[in-house]
C-alpha cells in the first residue's frame, strides 16, 4: 500500500508533460508510422498501410497509436487491439496505477516494447472529448491519491510523491522525446542532430533535469546530505566522462549522415542530367552525324536542340531556374507561346528565330490571335525573305502588346502585293482587325521587311505578369 501515493501522483502528473507534447503533435501533423520492427508474424501479412494490420486470429495487431494517444498512444493501441473503448483501457491503467504503481510500470513497459504503428483508424487525432476524458480519468486518479493521503499516507508525500513524481514526469518527457517514431524521423532528417526542433530540445533538457533533480531530492530526503553530494558528483563525473569518450563517435555519426545525404542528392542530380542529355543531346548528335551532308538539316537539328536544351536549363520552369522543377513550360503565358511559335517556325523552315520579349501576361484569346499573327509574319519572312535569321521583339507595356517581326531579306513593295495574297491580308491583317489590333508592314525591295503588330491588352491579365523575361 505504501507505493500507492507514488503511482497516484504519477497518474495525476500526466497533464504536466502533455501540453508541450500536444503542441509538438499539432505542429507536425505527419502521422507517419514508424518502422514496424519487431512485430511478430508481420511477414505473413501483406495488408496495405491504410488497413490495420491483423494478427493471425484476426485481431488488429498491438501497436502504439501516437496519433490518437495523449501520452504515448499505448491505451489507444490497446483499445484498438482489444476492440474496447479507449476510456476503459485508461480507467484500468489508472486503477492499476493506484495498486502499487502497476499501471504506471505496465504503461512504461508497453511504451518501451510495443512498436509505434499506424492507427488504421479513420479519425487520426484524439478529439477534444477523448482528450478531456483522459484528463478526467487522470484527475480521478489524483483525487483517489489525495483521499489516500488524507487517510494517513501523508508521510510518504514528503519524500516520495514530490521528488519521485517529478522524476516520473521527467522520464515521461524523455521517453516521449525519444519515442522511436521520433527517432526514426531524426534518422531521416539531414544532419541527425539538427532534426529535433529547439522546442523538443528544451523538453529533453527539462526532462533530464526533472529526473536527476527528482531522484536526488528523493535520495536527499532519505539519506544524509554529504553522501548524496558525493554520489551526485560521481554520477555527474561519470556522465561527463561518457559524453567526452563518445564525442568523436557522435561527430562521425553526424558527419556520415550529412555526407551520405549529400552524396545521394548529388547522385540523383547526376542521373537526372545524364538521362536528359542522353534523351536529347546525344540523339540529336547522332542525327546530325547521319545528316552531315545536308547543311540545312544540320542547322535545323542544331537550332532545335539548342532551343530545347536552353529552355531546359534556363527557361521559366527550367532546371537551373531558382524554383525550377525540370523541363515542361506550358504555353499559358505570352512569352512561352511566342517562344513556341518561333520554335515551330525554326523547325519548319530552318531559319534562326530568336524572340526577345519584355514583360509578360497570361494568355487570352486576343493574345493568342496576336501570337498567331506573329507566327504568320515569321513564316512569311522565312519563306520569302531568303535570310537565315529573323528578329522578333515583343513587349507588353502600358496596356498594349506589340510584336515586331523583322528580317533583312529581299523585301517587297507593299502596294504591289496582289489582293489575292491571303497570307498577309487574312492571316495577319484580318486577324489583328478582328481582335481590335493593328498590323503595319514596313518594307521596300532590298531593304528587308518589318511587320509591326500591336493590340490593346487587358491590364488585369497583365497583373498575372511573371517576373523577368
Amino acid at each position, binding site marked *: 500500500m505504501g507505493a500507492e501515493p507514488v503511482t497516484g501522483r504519477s497518474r495525476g502528473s500526466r497533464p504536466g508533460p502533455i501540453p508541450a507534447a500536444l503542441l509538438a503533435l499539432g505542429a507536425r501533423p505527419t502521422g507517419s508510422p514508424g518502422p514496424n520492427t519487431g512485430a511478430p508474424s508481420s511477414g505473413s501479412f501483406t495488408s496495405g498501410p491504410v488497413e490495420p494490420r491483423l494478427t493471425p486470429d484476426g485481431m488488429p495487431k498491438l501497436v502504439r497509436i501516437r496519433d490518437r494517444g495523449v501520452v504515448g498512444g499505448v491505451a489507444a493501441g490497446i483499445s484498438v487491439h482489444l476492440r474496447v473503448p479507449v476510456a476503459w483501457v485508461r480507467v484500468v491503467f489508472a486503477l492499476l496505477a493506484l495498486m502499487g504503481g502497476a499501471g504506471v510500470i505496465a504503461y512504461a513497459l508497453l511504451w518501451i516494447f510495443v512498436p509505434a504503428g499506424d492507427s488504421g483508424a479513420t479519425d487520426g487525432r484524439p478529439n477534444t472529448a477523448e482528450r478531456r476524458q483522459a484528463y478526467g480519468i487522470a484527475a480521478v486518479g489524483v483525487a483517489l491519491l489525495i483521499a489516500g493521503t488524507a487517510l494517513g499516507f501523508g508521510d510518504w508525500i514528503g519524500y516520495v510523491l514530490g521528488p519521485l513524481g517529478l522524476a516520473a514526469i521527467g522520464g515521461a518527457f524523455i521517453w516521449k522525446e525519444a519515442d522511436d517514431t521520433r527517432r526514426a524521423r531524426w534518422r531521416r532528417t539531414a544532419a541527425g542532430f539538427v532534426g529535433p526542433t529547439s522546442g523538443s530540445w528544451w523538453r529533453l533538457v527539462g526532462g533530464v533535469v526533472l529526473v536527476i533533480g527528482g531522484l536526488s531530492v528523493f535520495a536527499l530526503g532519505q539519506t544524509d546530505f554529504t553522501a548524496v553530494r558525493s554520489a551526485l558528483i560521481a554520477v555527474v563525473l561519470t556522465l561527463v566522462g561518457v559524453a567526452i569518450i563518445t564525442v568523436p563517435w557522435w561527430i562521425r555519426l553526424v558527419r556520415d549522415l550529412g555526407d551520405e545525404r549529400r552524396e545521394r542528392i548529388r547522385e540523383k542530380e547526376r542521373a537526372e542530367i545524364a538521362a536528359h542529355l542522353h534523351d536529347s543531346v546525344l540523339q540529336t548528335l547522332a542525327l546530325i552525324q547521319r545528316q552531315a551532308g545536308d547543311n540545312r538539316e544540320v542547322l535545323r537539328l542544331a537550332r532545335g536542340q539548342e532551343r530545347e536544351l536552353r529552355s531546359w536549363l534556363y527557361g521559366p520552369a527550367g532546371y*537551373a531556374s531558382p524554383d525550377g522543377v525540370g523541363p515542361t513550360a506550358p504555353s499559358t503565358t505570352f512569352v512561352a507561346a511566342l517562344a513556341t511559335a518561333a520554335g515551330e517556325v525554326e523547325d519548319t523552315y530552318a531559319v534562326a528565330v530568336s524572340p526577345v520579349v519584355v514583360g509578360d501576361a497570361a494568355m487570352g484569346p486576343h493574345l493568342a490571335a496576336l501570337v498567331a499573327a506573329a507566327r504568320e509574319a515569321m513564316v512569311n519572312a522565312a519563306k520569302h525573305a531568303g535570310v537565315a*535569321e529573323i528578329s522578333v*521583339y515583343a513587349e507588353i507595356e502600358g496596356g498594349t502588346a506589340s510584336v515586331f517581326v523583322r528580317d533583312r531579306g529581299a523585301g517587297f513593295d507593299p502596294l504591289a502585293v496582289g489582293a489575292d495574297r491571303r497570307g498577309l491580308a487574312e492571316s495577319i491583317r484580318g486577324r489583328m482587325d478582328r481582335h481590335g489590333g493593328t498590323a503595319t508592314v514596313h518594307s521596300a525591295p532590298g531593304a528587308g521587311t518589318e511587320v509591326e503588330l500591336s493590340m490593346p491588352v487587358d491590364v488585369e491579365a497583365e497583373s498575372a505578369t511573371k517576373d523577368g523575361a
Partner: protein
Amino acid sequence: MTWAGGGDGAPAKADGPVTVFLVDDHALFRTGVKAELAGLEDERIRVVGEAGSVGEAVVRITATLPDVVLLDVHMPDGGGRAVLEQVHGPHPEVVFLALSVSDAAEDVINVIRAGARGYVTKTISGRDLADAVVRVSSGDAVFSPRLAGFVLDAFSDRPGAAPVTDPELDMLSPREREVLKLLARGYAYKEIAAQLFISIKTVETHVSSVLRKTQMSNRYELTRWATDRRLV
C-alpha cells in the same frame, strides 16, 4: 547575326590593331574563335593570348594587358565574373566583352554589372564578333537584342517594381528607351540613327549611358537577378 552594329563599319583604333585575349575553359571553342577571327583577315584585330581557367586568365591578362578580353561567363572557380573582379579593378583600361552560350537574364545582367562593356552569345558570326570587339575597344557598349530586352525589362515600370530612389540612375530617359527598343528589334546603330533622326554618335552615347545605368543602378530588378543566384 547582324545586329552588332553590323554594317556600320566601326572605326579601327588609330594605333594598330586591337589586341584580343580569349578566356574560355573549352579549348575547342578558343581554337574555333581564333581560327574564325584569323580567317576574317581583319586588320583591325589581333589575338594575343588565351587562357582556360580563372587563375591562368588573371595572370596572363595582367601580363599582356590586351585591349579587349573575350570572356566566357561560365567557368569553374567563379566563372568570368571572378576574372572581371580581379582584373577590372587594378586594370580598368582592359575592356571586357562577355561571350557566352547562356541566355539567362541573371548571367547577362551579372556580368554587365561586374564591369563588362557588352555581352554577345557564342552563336554570333565571326564578322559580327570582330565588329563588336572593335566597338567595345573604342569605348562603346555592345548590346545584343537580348541584352537590350533584359535591360528594358529590368528598368520597366510594371506594377510591383521597386520605387525609383535615384532618378538619374534608376530610370531610362525616353530616348534611351527608344534606342534600346530598336536595338531589341534587331536594328543596327546606323538604322537606329536613321529612324530617330539622330547621329550614330548620339546612338552610341545613349547606349553607353544605358550601360552605365545598368551597372550602377540599385534598382530592385537588377540586384534581384544577382542575388537570386547568390552572386552578389
